[in-house]
């Protein structure tokens, strides 16, 4: 006997670890993502109800799969689903049973699911959100905030897309090699968005974030394996490896925020950085530069600090020039201004910043105000620095960043009082 609380924890852990895999397996066999989601949700609810009395099964994932499959059968009887759907479902059930009996290992259909979400018959703006929901198990509200749209609007788009997969007969499978490059952009964008989402929650305050970074890294590896000739797939994996290599150095022993150029390089994961560097070299061999390779190269230039004590700021500026040309993103323009400030002095950095100051997308963007404050301070403009620090402080929701900005603001205020 285990407690309800214990059963809940085990079920939740199983949900986190196996959600994408179980959903992809069920959906690829019944052709209906939405029905598979409902069945899986019911299976988790049943687990929480049954496990305290019956004990946690030896293979929780297999238990959940069988429960979800039974639920799909029931659903199909109750709603008098059409012959075609019934046939597909019963075939799915038989296959699942056979595979579980054989060795207890399920075929992993997540890559198929990932590429299905990027099908050209699915609206372009919902492809990445759909992957984040069905492959990574993030909820609509969380995805909506990552894409800056209302949760209800995001929910509607996701429901519509799932209905289209089922009703239009979009096959859940890995596309032919010929169709892969066209879908790759959306797949990479989704993995990147999910990784960024995990990155912005370093303390993993949301339980779903735990393991999310690891899962996105795993997906990145799987895509590189599936598309070994695609330099951008390698670029994205290199970028994620570089960023992830520094995750432990982002906070000090007391949990305080440490900016990139003050991080202790000894706390960076050297093996992961080496792997990223090797990938980037392999990607460069294809001679097709792209956004992710450029971003990974910027990360690489930052790690030069391991060898020579400082980042290669001039190289970083040159890379941002190219990245800005490719993406035209205000966030890239902001990072470029910071790099210019480091390479060529704060006045030139402020000059580059002035060029994007009118962009409304940056008005409530905390990193813009933090960067502006830092450049002003380095340029000796304490008053402007103070105003910008205050603005940045009001826009952050990360307690560690808030404490860091607060300390810097206090330092400016004290310096002026002297």
């Amino acid at each position, binding site marked *: 006997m285990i407690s309800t609380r214990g059963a809940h924890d085990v079920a939740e852990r199983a949900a986190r670890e196996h959600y994408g895999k179980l959903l992809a397996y069920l959906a690829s066999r019944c052709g209906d993502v939405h029905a598979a989601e409902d069945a899986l949700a019911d299976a988790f609810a049943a687990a929480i109800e049954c496990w305290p009395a019956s004990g946690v099964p030896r293979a929780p994932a297999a238990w959940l799969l069988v429960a979800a499959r039974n639920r799909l059968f029931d659903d199909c009887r109750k709603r*008098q689903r059409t012959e*075609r759907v019934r046939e597909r479902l019963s075939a799915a059930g038989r296959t699942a049973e056979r595979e579980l009996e054989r060795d207890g290992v399920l075929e992993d259909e997540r890559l198929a699911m990932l590429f299905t979400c990027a099908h050209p018959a699915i609206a372009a703006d919902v492809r990445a959100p759909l992957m984040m929901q069905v492959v990574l198990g993030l909820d609509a509200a969380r995805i909506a905030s990552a894409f800056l749209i209302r949760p209800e609007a995001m929910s509607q788009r996701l429901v519509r897309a799932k209905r289209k997969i089922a009703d239009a007969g979009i*096959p859940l499978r890995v596309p032919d090699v010929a169709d892969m490059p066209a879908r790759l952009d959306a797949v990479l964008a989704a993995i990147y968005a999910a990784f960024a989402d995990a990155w912005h929650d370093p303390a993993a305050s949301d339980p779903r974030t735990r393991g999310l970074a690891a899962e996105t890294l795993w997906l990145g590896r799987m895509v590189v394996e599936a598309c070994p000739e695609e330099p951008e797939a390698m670029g994205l994996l290199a970028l994620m490896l570089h960023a992830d290599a520094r995750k432990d150095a982002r906070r000090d022993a007391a949990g305080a925020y440490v900016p990139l150029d003050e991080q202790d390089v000894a706390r960076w994961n050297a093996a992961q950085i080496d792997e990223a560097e090797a990938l980037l070299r392999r990607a460069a061999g294809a001679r097709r530069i792209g956004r992710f390779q450029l971003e990974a190269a910027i990360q690489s230039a930052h790690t030069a600090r391991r060898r020579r004590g400082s980042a290669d700021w001039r190289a970083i500026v040159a890379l941002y020039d190219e990245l800005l040309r490719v993406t035209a993103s205000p966030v890239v323009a902001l990072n470029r201004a910071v790099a210019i400030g480091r390479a060529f002095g704060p006045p030139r950095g402020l000059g580059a910043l002035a060029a994007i100051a009118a962009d409304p997308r940056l008005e409530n963007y905390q990193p813009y105000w933090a960067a502006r404050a830092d450049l002003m301070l380095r340029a000796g403009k304490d008053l402007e620095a103070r105003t910008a620090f205050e603005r940045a402080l009001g826009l952050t929701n990360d307690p560690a960043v808030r404490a860091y900005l607060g300390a810097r603001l206090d330092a400016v205020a004290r310096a002026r009082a002297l």
Partner: protein
Amino acid sequence: MEYVLLLHDDEKRWSVMPEEQFRRETGAYAAYTDALREAGALVSGNPLQPTATATIVSIDADGKTNVLDGPYAETKEQLGGYYVIDVADLDAAIAWAARCPCAATGTVEIRPVADLTIPA
């Protein structure tokens, strides 16, 4: 799964077409239809008479039948024909739609047939 391919094209093109080109284009449709049949994908298919032959029928609130001449709305492309095909999935339907001569001169809309059969 059954899909209907709706062939939208500028029907005026056909009325001003030189005879040799007309033979070539209708020949392409015949070859495409044969290919569908040989692959076992063809359920049915037909070209339609031009929209000038269309008749619109509706019944109003008083139960009176209204019959109107002509197409419902003027559009740049008109529905000029259809195929009903039975293939595995949307990817197969897309592959057939792309081979249809209409995909090169106009557009082909793919619509899955709604399956409403209820098991006994």
